[in-house]
């Protein structure tokens, strides 16, 4: 029976009970939202298959690589690779998780509702923290678990290693995310909100980049052959290093064997549960105040507010300018490019280790820069239309033809990724000591692959746009992250195969030029087909 009279006092819950309730309910809501967003069963199945393929590729790659190193007697490399692999994961995760912490806590659309509920703020922060960790567990499942299984499987590790390391990699994101959440909440209380929000995105990109370059610099100075080579030890205070030592110990190539493996895993678990809860509890008490202050926006003052208004521009230029301004003012959108350029640095310093195993050719360098282009196209291509967000009604109700929208939506992302591919290609060529024509071939291949990957991403985004995101970083969560990336990799595989066939059939520069021309033809066909599809998708779009 419905009543309008005031009810009696409601049942009080403990902080732990409130946290548990929020986690369960919010998780349920997220699962429902994900299921409803991907109600198309074909896409859902394709995403699951793509995730499975990625899992299988990483597992097989690790297994085969570990076996090969073991057969070559490269025990030094085998013992030091795990800590480096987890370090790479940790640095990548810092780039992503800073944005996620800001998004979960300060840009989350449900936060006003949650803060208005009779729930303790620490319980709310704890619930958001748990949900953030669970989000990261997906990356652990897809990227880290197959690596660990492949490594242990190849080295015939003891059965105890499997449950121990599954526990270790499960708690690994928690300690990292807790640190980032603490830094975020404290920063929003100390630094003016707007500065803190934009600054944290940049810190999240710059700190790992500098750390990465410093570490890779040490890798570039490795000397010796495969049997004597080992990677320099990463900092011993990092949890990723403990996890790496644990894995190599369980594999029988690190020091201490199984007891040491158990010890390092136990240390990681202990640190996680001993440090995370009190740290979160301490900072979460000031979260509500920081959240409230975060709405203070600084004005962008100009003497003449109409200074930028003047000449008449075409619709395409207007739309491209608008998208470019959004890109420049949204640091979250820069990370993809920073990540792609980081990969160039990795290729340059990894060159010393890799070349004895896989000899360097121009075609290999072309495929490497092609991968950089595919990687650099992930965010720009797949978010080109989705970045319209809830303002998509403006484009649909304005007198723009689909092809005008499409041209602008391809130009700006291609401008970004093409530039990154060109810079990366130039750096790579210079680092490898290529001649000018060889460098041109590398840069050209990168730019072509950038165009192709962008068109694949745009076609996907126009078919499955996501206009309900809370921050741009969250657009590509879930299946969106995997499918177009794998499409790009598929095209790279085809073009790489074409380069190899041409190199084998026709030697020297003619073979290189023939491979480049074949790549151009293949990608042109793919671009023509995908952009035609994207144009039809735009015409049919309903909002």
């Amino acid at each position, binding site marked *: 029976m419905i009543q309008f009279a005031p009810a009696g006092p409601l049942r009080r819950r403990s902080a732990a009970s409130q946290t548990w309730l929020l986690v369960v309910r919010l998780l349920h809501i997220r699962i429902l939202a994900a299921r409803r967003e991907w109600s198309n069963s074909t896409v859902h199945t394709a995403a699951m298959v793509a995730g499975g393929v990625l899992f299988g590729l990483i597992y097989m790659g690790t297994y085969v690589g570990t076996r090969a190193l073991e057969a070559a007697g490269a025990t030094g490399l085998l013992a030091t690779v795990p800590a480096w692999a987890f370090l790479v994961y940790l640095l990548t995760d810092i780039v992503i998780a800073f944005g996620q912490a800001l998004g979960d806590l300060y840009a989350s659309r449900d936060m006003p509702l949650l803060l208005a509920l009779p729930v303790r703020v620490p319980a709310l922060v704890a619930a958001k923290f748990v949900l953030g960790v669970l989000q990261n567990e997906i990356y652990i499942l897809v990227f880290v678990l197959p690596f660990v299984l492949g490594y242990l499987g190849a080295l015939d590790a003891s059965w105890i290693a499997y449950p121990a390391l599954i526990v270790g990699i499960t708690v690994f994101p928690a300690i990292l995310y807790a640190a980032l959440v603490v830094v975020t909440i404290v920063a929003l209380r100390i630094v003016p909100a707007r500065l803190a929000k934009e600054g944290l995105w940049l810190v999240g990109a710059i700190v790992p980049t500098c750390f990465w370059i410093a570490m890779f610099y040490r890798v570039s100075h490795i000397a010796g052959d495969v049997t004597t080579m080992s990677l320099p030890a990463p900092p011993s205070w990092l949890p990723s290093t403990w996890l790496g030592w644990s894995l190599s110990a369980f594999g029988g190539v690190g020091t201490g064997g199984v007891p040491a493996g158990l010890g390092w895993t136990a240390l990681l678990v202990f640190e996680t549960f001993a440090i995370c809860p009190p740290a979160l509890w301490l900072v979460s008490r000031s979260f509500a105040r920081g959240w409230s202050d975060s709405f203070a926006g600084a004005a962008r003052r100009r003497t003449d507010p109409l200074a930028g208004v003047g000449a008449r521009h075409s619709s395409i230029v207007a739309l491209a300018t608008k998208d470019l301004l959004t890109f420049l003012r949204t640091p979250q959108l820069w990370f993809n490019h920073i990540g792609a350029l980081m990969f160039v640095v990795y290729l340059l310093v990894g060159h010393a280790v890799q070349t004895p195993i896989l000899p360097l050719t121009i075609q290999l360098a072309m495929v490497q820069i092609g991968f950089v282009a595919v990687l650099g196209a992930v965010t720009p291509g797949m978010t080109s239309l989705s970045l319209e967000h809830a303002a998509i009604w403006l484009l649909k109700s304005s007198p723009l033809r689909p092809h005008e929208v499409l041209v602008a939506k391809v130009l700006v992302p291609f401008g970004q990724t093409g530039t990154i591919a060109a810079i990366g290609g130039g750096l790579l060529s210079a680092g490898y000591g290529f001649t000018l024509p060889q460098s041109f071939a590398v840069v050209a291949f990168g730019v072509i692959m950038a165009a192709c990957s962008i068109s694949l991403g745009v076609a996907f985004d126009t078919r499955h746009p996501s206009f309900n995101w809370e921050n741009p970083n969250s657009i590509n969560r879930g299946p969106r992250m995997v499918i177009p990336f794998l499409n790009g990799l598929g095209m790279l595989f085809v073009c790489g195969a074409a380069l190899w066939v041409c190199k084998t059939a026709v030697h020297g520069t003619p073979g290189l030029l023939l491979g480049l021309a074949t790549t151009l033809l293949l990608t042109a066909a793919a671009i023509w087909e995908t952009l035609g599809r994207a144009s039809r998708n735009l015409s049919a779009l309903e*909002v």
Partner: protein
Amino acid sequence: MSAPLLEVESLTKCFGATVAVNAISFRVEPGEIFGFLGPNGAGKTTTIRMLTGLLRPTAGRALLGGFDIVARPEAAKRMFGYVPDEPNLYGKLTPVEFLNFIGDVYGMDGRRKRERIGELLDLFELSSAAGEFLEGFSHGMKQKVALCAALLHEPRIYFLDEPTVGLDPKSARLLKDILRAVTRAGGAVMMSTHIMEIAQGLCDRVAIVDHGRIAAIGTVDELRALRGDATLEDVFLGITGGAPGGTAAGDRLRSIVARSR
């Protein structure tokens, strides 16, 4: 008699098995403010979304200034300005950058665009906030910017979905004055609203929609004469079954209030 600026014939929209808008037809003449009333979920926003090209009609057609919104979307879209129920704008742009973008999309001359943006920002008292990002604006301020965008290219037809929601009384009054000026100049306005006083005081003709169909259409006086009721609110509640007196909902409400005492 001049040609209608908006002509809607048997417009229908289905979402799967659900018929959201069911073969509605009406016309809006130059110089007319046409009110579109109805309870929540009646099909008002869906109708406006079809007329503005956001949704594709399942059947029927709509002519805007003689242009079919499906067959000639670009020409039809040049005819109107639109303010949606939620003023979602580009958060990373300032109002000036946003209006500059809109002006370019509609192909406005550079000098005229600059003049018009300055005039509109002054009119809606947004000049002092012209250098701030839209993401920091309140709902009401965003609504004002959306109104500026709709007015910028001086269209002949205006579609306004709940335009006064979020506006302060001064801005709401300003909007009403602007709409009257627009229609005096030969333009046409179609607006949806839940506020009966606005519909009664501002609209020349009103359509009441219920369950996707037009249940009644005419001038406010004609609708009031239909039932001999005193106000448009009574007519609306009588037609849509929401009147507290004598309806099932009214009986339920009385019983709930009695129990809670």
